[in-house]
């Protein structure tokens, strides 16, 4: 029994020693799980970058030594992954001075391990999504927008049709003027604009682009620069602006001068033309009459004051009757004998006829309506006296009256009592009004009760004319 107990104890201790010695994976490591995270790095300086979706679904890893390894030493780089309690490593392919490897899994945490003949394997952890180097942009196009005076720079990237980095890149655009200093612009989009006013006119510029992960889960470094693209700025940028400014100045000057001219014209013609047209004055009878009628000659009297006609021999018009005489007077072409009433065909006919004849040949020298020369007026008064007939008086405007407005027509009017008129007689001296009025008063009593009075108006003179 004692022997069995001792045997079982030794066996259990041995098994326990083996368990702690070998571990689960069976690989030697400080962690005991096969990984080399806690192993001391042994001068292991390499730079690596990954390229996602390098070819179809494959991603790539490229590493190179920052310090060249000593000669005559073979080094091997391997990418190791822990899978299902196993540590699987894949050796990287050496290409000139770099090591290259394609793989598909970018989710798991990996280790980069270096093997050499002289040293033991040394590993270092590696997160593939933190060392991403995007592919180079391409197809740079520069378009000039004349209206906005801007240069639109458009470029493309292969990640636009891939999965992981499609909208997770930031682009840097560098431009310079003919061996000048590079200026950079960063944008998350695939196009940027350069303002024309910030560029020199008629100059040559060079543009190039590169990309980098924006830090949203994927991190990494700048890609290589794209091939440069050159373009030349236009000459018309400044001239267009200057011509437009000149046109504006010219139009402003013309507008100012036109406004001054308008003000001067308004001030000059305000009283004479503008104001009468906008606010016309009330018509003045005298002025209107002067505008309608012609100006009389200097030797014409146009006063309505009877006293100014003192030199004019005024005959009474008591004997005037015939309306026909008046018609003959108005129609000088017709035969005056036909219109002469039978009553007048007496001894005074011969006198009348010459008067009528004279009247027919009379060219009334009226220059403008209504105003008669003194001689013509005298003749008119003489003929009119014989032309008035009894009982044929009316309120005709052609009946000539005395200047004092004594009515002409009267039934008891007797022409025979009146002296025959003499066309060439001398005018009587003044006064006539008062004597005439006193003489005419009894005559007025003898007149017919026809109270229609005839007045001479300027319109009648105008019509006679």
């Amino acid at each position, binding site marked *: *029994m004692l022997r069995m107990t001792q045997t*079982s*104890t030794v066996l259990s201790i041995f098994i*326990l020693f083996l368990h702690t010695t070998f571990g689960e994976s069976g690989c030697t490591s400080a962690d005991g799980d096969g990984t080399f995270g806690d192993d001391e790095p042994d001068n292991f300086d390499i730079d690596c970058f990954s390229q996602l979706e390098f070819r179809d*679904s494959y991603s790539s890893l490229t590493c190179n030594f920052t310090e060249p390894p000593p000669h005559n030493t073979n080094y091997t780089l391997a990418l190791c992954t822990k899978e299902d309690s196993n540590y699987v490593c894949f050796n990287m392919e050496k290409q000139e001075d770099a090591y290259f490897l394609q793989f598909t899994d970018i*989710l798991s945490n990996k280790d980069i391990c270096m093997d050499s003949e002289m040293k033991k394997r040394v590993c270092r952890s590696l997160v593939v999504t933190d060392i991403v180097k995007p592919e180079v942009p391409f197809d740079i196009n520069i378009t000039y927008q004349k209206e906005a005076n801007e240069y639109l720079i458009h470029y493309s990237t292969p990640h636009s049709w891939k999965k992981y980095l499609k909208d997770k890149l930031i682009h840097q655009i560098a431009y310079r003027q003919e061996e000048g200093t590079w200026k950079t612009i960063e944008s998350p989009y695939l196009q940027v604009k350069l303002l024309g006013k910030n560029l020199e006119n008629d100059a040559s510029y060079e543009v190039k682009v590169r990309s980098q992960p924006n830090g949203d889960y994927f991190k990494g470094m700048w890609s290589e620069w794209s091939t440069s693209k050159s373009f030349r700025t236009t000459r018309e940028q400044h001239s267009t602006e200057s011509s437009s400014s000149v046109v504006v100045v010219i139009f402003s000057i013309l507008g100012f001068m036109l406004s001054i001219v308008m003000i001067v014209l308004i001030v000059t013609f305000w009283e004479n033309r503008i104001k009468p047209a906008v606010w016309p004055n009330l018509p003045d009878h005298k002025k209107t009459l002067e505008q309608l009628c012609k100006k009389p000659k200097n030797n014409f009297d146009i006063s309505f004051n009877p006293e100014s006609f003192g030199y004019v021999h005024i005959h009474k018009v008591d004997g005037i009757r015939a309306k026909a005489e008046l018609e003959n007077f108005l129609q000088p072409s017709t035969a005056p004998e036909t219109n002469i009433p039978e009553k007048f065909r007496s001894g005074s006919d011969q006198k009348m006829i010459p008067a009528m004849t004279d009247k027919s040949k009379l060219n009334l020298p009226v220059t403008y309506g209504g105003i008669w020369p003194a001689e013509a007026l005298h003749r008119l008064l003489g003929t009119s006296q014989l032309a008035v007939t009894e009982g044929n008086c009316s309120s005709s405007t052609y009946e000539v009256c005395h200047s004092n407005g004594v009515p002409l027509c009267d039934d008891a009017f007797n022409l025979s009592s009146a002296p025959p008129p003499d066309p060439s007689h001398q005018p009587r001296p003044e006064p006539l009004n008062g004597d005439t009025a006193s003489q005419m008063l009894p005559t007025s009593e003898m007149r017919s009760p026809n109270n229609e009075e005839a007045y001479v108006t300027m319109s009648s003179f105008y019509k006679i004319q």
Partner: protein
Amino acid sequence: NSAFFRSIFRVLPLLLVLSPVNSSSCAMGNRTTEIRVKYENILSHDIDELVNMSAEYRDRCCKNKKHENSKVFFCNDTQEIESLQGMACNMLRFFHKQKISKSFRWKAALVSCGTLQLLQCKCERHKKEK
């Protein structure tokens, strides 16, 4: 006799300690944030590609399969990781079907392996092509 049983009791606990404890094929721990971030930025794009490729095989699959077979892709509540593990492992089985195109099978394997890697799970007796 008492000494014999005492020795046995000393060994048994050692055997229990030494025996491999592997009741779950997935790693323990709360890795919800890490799983979500990796899914949104990487695995979701692969799943979208697989869905687009499977469009031409949609009718063919539904005609030949019965509905009770859809239990292999059923997601149980509070057992999301186990359900995803089951779906990924079942999808790996399709990798060996000859009637499906090679590109589709390759994409299905990629998604399955990516899911298992993300969940840090493994399938029971599965084979993966590299």
